[in-house]
């Protein structure tokens, strides 16, 4: 008998009925991110059903996913596969299994929004670059954007930053309690 613990965990956390998958491969045939993936999408789903927890959480696939939802809208069993991968990311991060550049950047993005109320792109990008110790790989893009006036040099702060931070604080408090 296979170990269903991981399947149950994933179904609970994602609220998706992953066990409905009958391996039709439609998710994989439509996926634009296959060249960047180590395990193709329908196999990730299969591995979840087989209880291959480590394989799934350490896979490059869950981070290469673009969250374009082509797979999700095509799934004949109405499994939101993009969201299943998104859920696997959260578990992987929680357990320090796969810290990825995507997670690093998304975290800096959200930090910037918490701080200013809106994204201060320049700050998020520079913090990301410093963290990666790679300041110059996108110089041309950055300079072109500034030349065309398509990169804001200064942040825009909303007036009610306190209100926004209070709302996010209450949410975090509630999450800690439950």
């Amino acid at each position: 008998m296979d170990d269903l613990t991981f399947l149950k965990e994933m179904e609970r956390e994602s609220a998706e009925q992953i066990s409905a998958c009958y391996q039709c491969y439609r998710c994989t045939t439509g996926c634009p991110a296959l060249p960047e993936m180590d395990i193709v999408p329908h196999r990730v789903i299969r591995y979840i059903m087989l209880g291959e927890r480590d394989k799934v959480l350490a896979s490059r696939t869950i981070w290469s996913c673009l969250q374009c939802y082509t797979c999700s809208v095509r799934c004949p069993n109405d499994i939101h596969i993009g969201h299943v991968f998104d859920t696997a990311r959260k578990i992987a991060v929680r357990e320090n299994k796969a810290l990825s550049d995507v997670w690093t950047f998304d975290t800096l993005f959200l930090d910037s929004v918490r701080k200013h109320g809106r994204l201060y792109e320049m700050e998020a990008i520079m913090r990301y670059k410093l963290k990666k110790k790679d300041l110059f790989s996108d110089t041309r893009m950055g300079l072109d954007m500034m030349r065309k006036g398509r990169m804001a040099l200064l942040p825009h702060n909303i007036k009610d930053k306190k209100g926004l931070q209070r709302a996010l604080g209450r949410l975090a408090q509630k999450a800690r309690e439950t």
Partner: protein
Amino acid sequence: MVTLTYYPGCSLKTGSKFYEASIQKVFSTYGIGLRELPDWSCCGASAAHTIDEDVAHVLVARNLAIAEKQELNFFAPCSACYSRSKITNDTIRSDISLQDRLNDAIAPLECTGSLEIKNIIEVLDDHVGVSVIAKKKRFDLSALRVVPYYGCVLTRLMRVKPFDDRENPRSMDGLLEALGATVLDWPFKMECCGAAKTLTDKEMTVRLSERIMARAIGAGADAIVTPCPLCQMNLDLLPSLGSTIPVIPTLFLSEVFELALYGRMIGLSSHFVPAETVVTKIKEA
């Protein structure tokens, strides 16, 4: 005459300011009033929901709550803003426990999902309509061959009802036809441009955007037309990202309206890929 709450989102105030200018000009010609949402905050875009679903919902809920006080429908031109706002708005209508959870967080603000969230295609369809669009155009766009590029997030919505077909949307095609442009059929209406990978995996964005660009050129297009700021940015940035394939301009949908109404575009110099070739295709009607 209709007035809408206008939610610009971060892009239309930074990387795509000319999209905002373009929309304002075109909408005022058609008598659509826009009232910018007071003290709006970021929708969380592609980042927040990956980190925490509820954080993403709370970011949207704050904006919805402010908008619901104005009792005007909510217009979000950026596809990410539109999608994130619509997901939360339409979900809390029936998911009362989520609604309560969000309202507990944002109190004293409160939202119930009472508004309609509209994208630019819907606004132009619902509040102007193709017959008025066809009648009011002043320039001949028939020599301009375009491919409609919708991008991922506008219609690929799960658990909420999309405004157009999830996989083969037609609404923007109809608007472009009404403007008199030559609309080409192509299979990449919904292909992913690489989205937010531009920084974390540049090669991936280049690979995906190059595929779209090459397909558009292969179809014989003079320009790609999109409503999405991130799609526009990725395609327009290709040479700046080190790509050496041939490129054509990527226009915002509202810029094609500008061409049909005024024969020029406010944001011409904001394009990375020179867009003058597009303007020279336009003739006095």
